[in-house]
Structures are given as structure tokens and as C-alpha cells.
């Protein structure tokens, strides 16, 4: 620990990045394995609903802020029903928001048509930028809610039901299973390297090939060991996740129909404006 602190801030930040990723994976696994009501809904139902929700969100016209705002009901309701922390989900926006803002930031300057909003003239580009950000946030939240209430094994089962080739699904699941193992190995290797190279940011170019190459060779050897272990446990090209779940039940169907009706209603008419006009 003393050596670590001598080597400086950059190493600490660097190592915490890999550690943070491992923690994030474990955290998501913990969330998806909880005994919540939403977690018990059939994975196929949640997967299809998520895809339809995102499709509906991105299909809104670029100035239709009010119509799009109505779609906040789905994440809002699922956050409450699944008893999930909204704050925890916000860090997932770190990849999406910068990209979306980068693409939309010029809209207010390029789309100069003026729109009156509550008596204040604003550029139509402001509206299109707002819908773009809303679409980005809503779609990320929907994906988060799916993965926070459904384990990847169950999701793989849903993919199997959608006739995605079984071998491809198994490969996807194995990749996921070995990510934490290899991340821990990367963490150890880079930690060992950085402790011997204090005040150095990242890996020196002379060690580019040998550092990652060693890891690669060890990973390939590990793949062979994994295969041999799987054979010893009776692996014949299929993985056990397929046997765990049945087809969607009555409750799953009700859940699906309810949300489909809500999506259809909010997509077909601006519910927020209709309710607002009553008052």
C-alpha cells in the first residue's frame, strides 16, 4: 500500500477504473438477482418491452417535447416497482450524454427558426436538442432497468426463444462469465507493472506487445482449460440456462399488455397536453 501511494495519483485512478468496472458488474448481478416483483417477470417480456419502448422513444418527431415527455412514465414506474435507486443509474449516462450533446449542441445555432415557448422566443434547435437528450436518457434508463431486473442468463434464455443460434448465445454468456476473471488478471498485471514504473501514465510503448501478448497467450491457454473442464462436466455444445425458465405466464402477459397499451396511448396522443388542457 505504501509503494502504491508513492507511485502517484495516475496509477490510483488507473487501477480504480478496472476495479470500478468489476464492482459495477457485481453490482448489476446483485440487483438482477433480487427477489423483486419486476425481477420475476419473464425475461422475454421485459426484453421485447424494452425494445418496443426504445423504438417508440426514438420515433418521436424532433420538436415533439411534450409527446416524448409522456414516455417518462415507464422508467418512473419501473424504478418504483423494482425499488431501484435512480441516482445509481445516472452514471450509466457517462458514455451517452457526451456523444449526444456533441451531436446536438450545434442544433440551436443551425436551426434558427424561432418558436414561442411560454411567451419567450427560443430557437427551434433548442427543442430538437432537448428531444435528442431526452431520447438518449430514456433509452439508457430502459436498458438499465432491463439489465437491473434480469440476469444475463435469463436474457440469454430470452434470446434463445427468439431463435438466436444457441452456440452464439453460449459464446456470449461465456464472454460475460470470463470478463471479471480477465479484468482481475489485467488489474494484477497492470498493478505489478505500474509499481515498478512509478510516475508513468499507462504502459510504455516498449512493453505494448509483451504485456498484452502475455495476457493473450495465458487467456488462450485458459480457454483450453475451460473447454476441458466443461467436457468433464458433460458439455456437449449446450449450456444449462435453457432448462431453467418456462414460457410467459398469465401475469407476464398482463404486464406486457398493460405496458403495450400505455405505450400506444402515449405514442398516439400527447396525453400530457390533453390532461393539462383540462385544468
Amino acid at each position: 500500500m505504501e509503494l502504491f501511494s508513492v507511485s502517484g495519483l495516475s496509477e490510483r485512478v488507473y487501477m480504480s477504473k478496472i476495479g470500478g468496472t468489476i464492482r459495477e458488474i457485481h453490482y448489476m448481478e446483485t440487483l438482477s438477482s433480487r427477489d423483486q416483483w419486476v425481477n420475476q417477470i419473464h425475461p422475454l417480456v421485459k426484453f421485447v418491452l424494452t425494445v418496443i419502448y426504445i423504438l417508440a422513444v426514438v420515433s418521436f418527431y424532433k420538436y415533439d417535447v411534450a409527446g416524448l415527455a409522456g414516455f417518462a412514465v415507464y422508467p418512473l414506474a419501473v424504478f418504483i416497482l423494482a425499488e431501484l435507486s435512480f441516482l445509481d443509474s445516472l452514471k450509466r449516462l457517462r458514455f451517452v450524454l457526451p456523444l449526444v450533446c456533441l451531436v446536438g449542441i450545434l442544433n440551436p445555432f443551425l436551426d434558427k427558426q424561432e418558436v414561442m415557448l411560454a411567451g419567450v422566443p427560443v430557437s427551434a434547435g433548442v427543442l430538437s436538442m432537448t428531444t435528442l437528450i431526452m431520447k438518449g436518457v430514456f433509452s439508457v434508463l430502459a436498458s438499465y432497468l432491463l439489465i437491473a431486473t434480469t440476469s444475463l442468463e435469463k436474457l440469454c434464455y430470452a434470446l434463445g426463444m427468439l431463435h438466436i443460434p444457441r452456440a452464439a448465445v453460449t459464446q456470449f454468456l461465456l464472454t460475460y462469465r470470463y470478463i471479471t476473471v480477465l479484468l482481475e488478471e489485467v488489474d494484477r498485471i497492470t498493478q505489478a507493472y505500474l509499481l515498478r514504473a512509478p510516475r508513468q501514465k499507462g504502459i510504455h510503448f516498449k512493453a505494448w506487445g509483451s504485456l498484452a501478448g502475455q495476457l493473450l497467450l495465458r487467456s488462450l491457454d485458459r480457454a483450453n482449460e475451460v473447454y476441458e473442464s466443461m467436457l468433464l462436466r458433460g458439455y456437449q455444445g449446450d449450456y444449462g440456462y435453457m432448462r431453467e425458465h418456462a414460457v410467459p405466464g398469465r401475469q407476464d402477459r398482463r404486464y406486457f399488455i398493460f405496458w403495450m397499451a400505455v405505450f400506444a396511448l402515449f405514442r398516439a396522443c400527447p396525453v400530457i397536453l390533453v390532461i393539462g388542457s383540462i385544468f
Partner: protein
Amino acid sequence: MHMADALVAPAVAGMMYASSAVAAAYSVKKVRLNADPKKVPVMGVMGAFVFAAQMINFTIPGTGSSGHLCGGMLLSALLGPYAGFLTMIGVLAIQCLLFADGGLLALGCNIWNMAFYGCFLGSLLIWKPMMRQGMSKAKITAASVLGCMLTLQLGAFSVALETFASGITELPFAAFVGFMQPIHLAIGLVEGLITAAVLVFVYEARPELLFCGAGGEKKAGRFSFKHTMAILGVSAALIGGLLSLAASSHPDGLEWSIEKITGSTELEASGGIYDRAGSIQETTSLLPDYAWKGSDSAAGTAFSGLIGGTVVVAVCVGACYIFQFFRKERKTT
């Protein structure tokens, strides 16, 4: 370069999903995963390796910044184009689902932009023809750098094209492309060098692991290395020249195409379904006539929106808590 859901229109997302699905189905057929079950664990672990190795920061000399491995090119050099492509799909899907790095709807675009170009074009157009006559450190380095630069250029161009086709940004297509391409040229060079360093290390330690390496195809290919390079060079010059010409004289390529076909830059349509669609759009949009400056109804619309939004949120939250209350009651009794 991971695209978010907000940047793609449903039609574009659907088309890219379909294209990626065709490439994936072809790959599954070519790899014959069911016939060789050993491939599946190897692909799984290699996918995890790419994910983990992309967390390593490789310092770029003299800049103070760092770069990462190019997953597509590395996987296709080790597993071949088809197995590499399927493995990359797994990596991209996990990045999307677990870390929100790329959207679920935009996954088809991301597979095409990063996995298809990296694995299919990088491997079949560059890696395989260059390695047919035997491997060397220089060839591996050249193939990695060229492959990464070409595939990243194509990927970046596709991102701009997909965003433009989705009608998301007001930025002109030419300006967007002009912004994307040079950045990705530099990234491609760095990623290519890092990937080359790793592949050269593997070549020196265990050359049999590389695709088309020792024990690979011994038969001479249809094209020699020189021929392939010449074809690639001429194609790049032609495509680059034509694209830049079109971009400079016709900044808005789609409008230009439409004008050539219809005589106008706008497509106008009338008749049953168009009129009905127009009336639906008018009733469902926030600003049917955009409430341009001078409109009296705009302030009222915004007010209705605020009130309506508050009511909807209150009803939604209230209904959820009532639902939960009754479920807990039923559970305890």
C-alpha cells in the same frame, strides 16, 4: 465510436440490424459452431480478453495521452473473420447492456461499424491477402496498421452516414464527415500500432495461433500482396476523390440526389395515406404548426404541458405505490 439509441431513427436501426443479422447468420454458417464445440469456449474467452485488454492504457510516446487495442482486427487475426465477427458481437452486446456503451437499438449499427468492417474487411481484404505468401513482422505490422486505419475510417464514415440518414443533427453531412474522419485516422494509426505490437509478440511466441499462419492455407492466393495493395490504393483514391468532390460541390448529398431525381430538394406527396399520416402527425405533435413567433397559442401549450406533465407523474407515482402496497399486503396475509 459506439452510437447511442438517440442518434438513430427506427428505420436506420432496423436496416442496420438486418444487415448485421445477415452477416452474423453467414458467419454462424461458415464457422459451423455446432460441429466444433471447442470453438465456443475459445471465442468466449477471447471476447473477454478483448474487453479486458481494452481497459489497458497504452501510452502514446510524446503526447501524454493513451490508446487502446483494436478488437475487431485482433480477433480476426487470431480467430479468422467469421469467428472474430461473432465474438465481437458478444463484446459489443455486453458493452451495451452492462455499461450503456452504445444503445440497444443502435447495436445493429455498432456491430456493422465496428465488427463488420474490422473483421470482414480488415481480415478478408487486408490480413488474409497479405499473409498468403507467408508471415513476417513487417507484414503483420503493415496489415494491422492498414487494417485498423481503413476499418476505423469506414466505421466513422458509417456513423456520420447513419446519423445523417436518421435526421438527428442539423450539422451538414460534409461538416460531420470532416469532423469524424481526421480524428479516426489518428486513432486508427495508434490502435493499429498497439494491435501490431501484440500480434508480433504472438507471432514470435506462438505463430501457429495466428489466422493463415503456420499450418494455414499454403495455396497461393489469386492476388499477390503487391496486387492487393495496388487495388486498395486505387480504390481508396477513387472513393476518397469522388466522395470529397461530391462533398465539396454538393454539401447536402441527399438533397442533391433528390433534386436530380425530382427537380426539387423536397419530396412532396399527396393522396389518401399521406394526408391521413399528415393529419395524425398534426394532432399528435406538440407544435403542429411549430407555433412560430407571433403565435398566441404557444404560451398556453407550454402551460398545458407543464400541468399535464405534473399530473401524469403524480398519477404514475401514486399508482405504483398503491400497486406495491396491495402486493405487500397480499404477500403478508
